[in-house]
């Protein structure tokens, strides 16, 4: 220790002092420039700062609504397949209070975090966990950016962002912190209608009268699962088991054109079945690519109705929802 101090006191002291001072100085300059860039530059000129307050997918409205919601029967969570695929009004019609906490490109890492933040408050009887192969192969960056842009910074969100090790996420985290302090307007509401999307209270985003064009290119899905995503999925299941909350894993329908490109879908089904009750709705006979989807992997409003009816039937048939609980 004496040696350490002697070195730091004499030969390296100015170096260490200046390194620390420069680190602080550069940090401040970085934050100022980041703030100016976020406020003034269009999105395309700041590729590593993709913060947009009201992004597509309505996460901002959904999170704001989730903060005011409690004691629900069914919580739906997952990617855009969840919030664009499950209309909570279909559950309400059957007498169940439901909330959809899906978000853009949400992976199990973000689902886990959102459940940690909201499970106690929402207190669901049943959690419908939407899963599909790509959500296990994504790094979760897009979803973290979406959530950082849409909700106030909280410990779990910061922790998740820091674990991401990605410049876009770090910049968005920094900017979101500054934006929350300096520019956030509590009274500013997100427009429920954006492009062809309509935000429906309860978390669902509806897309009507839009149809998949089979001429459009369908990308090859990635089927290399990430270890951290599988671990997060298992952590979610463990959390729900510990809380004695019933859950079901659900794979929402995608177009046949896309599903046919999946590499070994049966293997994914087996993996999910090992983790609990699991339904794959990609064999729903009533769904047609050109009638019930608006792009290669998202249902339109007509498709959502078909899917949700089948989902509710399955939940009832397997005793995950009880008719006696109808309001």
């Amino acid at each position, binding site marked *: 220790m004496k040696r350490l101090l002697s070195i730091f006191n004499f*030969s*390296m002291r100015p170096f260490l002092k200046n390194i620390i001072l420069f680190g602080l100085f*550069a940090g401040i*300059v970085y934050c100022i*420039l*980041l703030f100016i860039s976020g406020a003034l530059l269009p999105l*395309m000129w700041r*590729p*590593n700062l993709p913060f947009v307050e009201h992004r597509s997918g309505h996460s901002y409205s959904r999170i704001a609504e989730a903060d005011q919601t409690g004691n629900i029967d069914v919580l739906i969570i997952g990617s855009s397949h969840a919030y664009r695929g499950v209309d909570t009004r279909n559950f309400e019609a059957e007498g169940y209070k439901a909330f959809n906490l899906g978000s853009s490109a949400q992976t199990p890492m973000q689902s886990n975090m959102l459940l940690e933040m909201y499970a106690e408050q929402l207190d669901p009887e049943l959690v419908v966990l939407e899963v599909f192969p790509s959500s296990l192969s994504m790094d979760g960056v897009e979803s973290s950016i979406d959530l950082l842009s849409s909700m106030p910074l909280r410990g779990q969100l910061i922790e998740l962002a820091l674990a991401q090790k990605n*410049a876009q996420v770090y910049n968005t985290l920094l900017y979101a912190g500054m934006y929350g302090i300096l520019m956030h307007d509590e009274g500013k509401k997100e427009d429920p209608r954006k492009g062809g999307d309509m935000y429906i209270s309860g978390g669902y985003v509806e897309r009507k009268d839009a149809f998949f064009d089979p001429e459009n290119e369908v990308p090859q899905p990635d089927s290399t699962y990430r270890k951290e995503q599988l671990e997060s999925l298992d952590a979610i299941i463990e959390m729900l088991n510990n809380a004695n909350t019933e859950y079901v894993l659900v794979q929402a329908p995608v177009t046949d054109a896309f599903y046919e490109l999946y590499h070994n879908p049966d293997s994914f089904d087996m993996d999910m079945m090992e983790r609990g009750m699991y339904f794959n709705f990609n064999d729903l006979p009533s769904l047609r690519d050109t009638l019930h989807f608006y792009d290669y992997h998202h249902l339109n409003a007509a498709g959502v109705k078909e899917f949700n009816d089948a989902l509710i039937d399955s939940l009832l048939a397997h005793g995950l929802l009880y008719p006696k609980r109808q309001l």
Partner: protein
Amino acid sequence: MLFNSLDFAIFLPVVFALYWLIRGLKGQNALLLVSSYLFYGWWDYRFLALILLSTAIDYVISNAIHGHVKQHSRKLLVGLSIAANIGMLGFFKYYNFFIDNFQDAFSLLGEPVTLRYMDIILPVGISFYTFQTLSYTIDVYRKHLEPAKDFIAFAAFVSFFPQLVAGPIERGQRFLPQFFAYRTFSYPMAVDGLRQMLWGFFKKMAIADNCAVYANAVFDNPDAHSGSTLAFGAVLFAFQIYGDFSGYSDIAIGTARLFGFNLMQNFAFPYFSRDIAEFWRRWHISLSTWFRDYVYIPLGGNRGGRWKITRNVFIIFLVSGFWHGANWTFIVWGLLHALFFIPLLWTNRHKKYTDTPGIGRALPSVREVTAMLGTFLLTTLAWVFFRAASVGDALNYIDGIFDPSLLSMPVVVDPAVALLTVLLICFMTVVEWIGRTGNHGLEHLGLQWPRPLRWTMYAVVIFITGLYMQTDETPFIYFQF
């Protein structure tokens, strides 16, 4: 371990702190050796045995050479070292290439043979450290250098982590004595090392990785692009490889300076060269001078008649090309540079430009700009062979450039990001032009400014890197060599 990774961001400060806590030379060398092996083993620990083997061979042979008086024995020993090092390099890097070409040659002669290919992983950095140890043993043989008696210090010299995997390829004469000299912490040296690292990170992360996005897209599918897009892709590759490799060298040299070591300059703003001869005095200096000292001069160098010198130049460029990889594309790349160089040699103009371009002026003259652009275009043309998967692909690419569509606007997937990349290249070029008399772009820039202004400039470089870097950790191109 990659320089541009979070692992290195933790590794470096820890090793730095431990290093300066140890006062003794032996302890510092031992720490450098352990750290270097850890740094290398992070990628693949199995190949540490190869470094150790190469180190042991040259350690034993160099001491044996020193102990022998008879020239015949000394020659035999140095031959053994050359055979061992080139043998290792040949096996790991060129085995399948030679098998492939033997088969083709026999097929052409009407005697098809089937030889066995092997699934060989190329150990990262093997071309660099084998050349470093080879030069050391040759220097001992030439009596330019006393052999190292301390194995730890010698092993640290071979495996010194900042330059282990992609150079600069150091010489024993210059570098080894630094492992035996008492090292004290130097504030100006460490601070300049950090500046050089900063500039290296900028060139790698903001320039090279962004250029790579477009260059890869164009080179991977040249038939789908217009002549102007192909030309744009080739120019971006020229900046990609410069940003990548000179960025690596800057980080390596800067890191070494934090530990009190001076590595040789590897790049001296080569795209400001006014002819190809000057380019080769400024590009990958440690390799070109290696070939000059250990191949060109022993072949006779500039002595002898015109044809002998021409032969020597061709040999050195071909060997240099082949050093880069087991592919005819690299050989053609070397050949092209030889063809560009020979006219200068024959007209005795190959040493015309030995000064700094535009010295004493803020801007280059029109003549200089023309000369620089001409040299840049020649090197870019050669880079097409360097980047293409085969000679046929390169010819196809060049054929695609010289098409009427060369006069159209280049088509890129994301024009805004492409424009940003061009602006970043302009920024780098301006900074390097201003700092062209130094060892790196930021060496002298702003040193006379008040500290807050100078620090703001460094912070802006960090910010630009953070805002425009590619988000994936991408390996350096020269790792594959």
